[in-house]
């Protein structure tokens, strides 16, 4: 999580660094919202697979 920021800071400065950093912040703030939903979807799929398998 921290290291991509370091990469951004090393490779870019100024405006480009700001753009990249904002994209990373977007990813970091959206992914904890989406990930439990996707995980529960996967659980539902796996339960369905187990039930249909038996």
């Amino acid at each position: 999580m921290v290291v991509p920021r370091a990469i951004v800071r090393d490779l870019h400065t100024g405006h480009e660094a700001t753009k990249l950093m904002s994209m990373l912040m977007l990813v970091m703030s959206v992914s904890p919202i989406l990930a439990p939903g996707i995980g529960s979807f996967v659980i539902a799929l796996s339960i369905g697979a187990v039930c249909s398998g038996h």
Partner: protein
Amino acid sequence: MISAPLLGACGSAATEIAWSPSGNEPVTKARVIIDSDYTLKRCDRRFVFGTRRCDRLRPHFPGQSGSAGAPEGQRAAQPGQCRNLLHPGAGRVIDYPTLEARSGGVIQRHQAVNHFLRLAVALGLITAVGPFAIDMYLPALPSIGAQPERQPQCGAATLMAFFIVFGVCSSSMGRWRISSGASCRSMAGLALFTIGSIGCALSNDGHNADRLPAFFRRSAPVPGWWCRALLCATSTPGTKRPS
């Protein structure tokens, strides 16, 4: 079953370690040696993306089309006359106006032109690996605790084990270095993460008909998909590793 999150934690921490900066050298300076046939011979730039860019360096000679016809002899490309063939198959030639490169010279400015979007996608994928690895199995915590032969705290213990390994590896092994370059480090970390995901996928602990093994079997390759997407985003055919 605790071993599965441990594997994933090791892989995730190794991914973080793999992208840690490796030294104090200035990042805007890269030593580039162009061979006599004007292909890149050596580039010790630290990051994989910079190496990819260095690998596309070809000198531009007026009166010749592209980089196919290099003149005879050891003529060196003059500063400002290098071109970057990002898409040789499409014949697209992109100029680096600020590039200063010559045979055995030093590139002072190495700005990203077309790789910005690729870099953003790749770094976004790397950033998303950690939260997805943590949060995707949070809905399965009650299932982990609901195993009849385990204590209810078992699910929380898996999460704690994940964070312990993650923190210890990130803090203690941050200065781990491999002399073969940062790209090998990053690929090794992502490969370790993928191996951990496969370990999660194959871990059954003798409960085949459980919800939990099915969950891990289905969800654990997801980090592997991220890694694969990252590899596709960062790898281009014909690239060379830094020597």
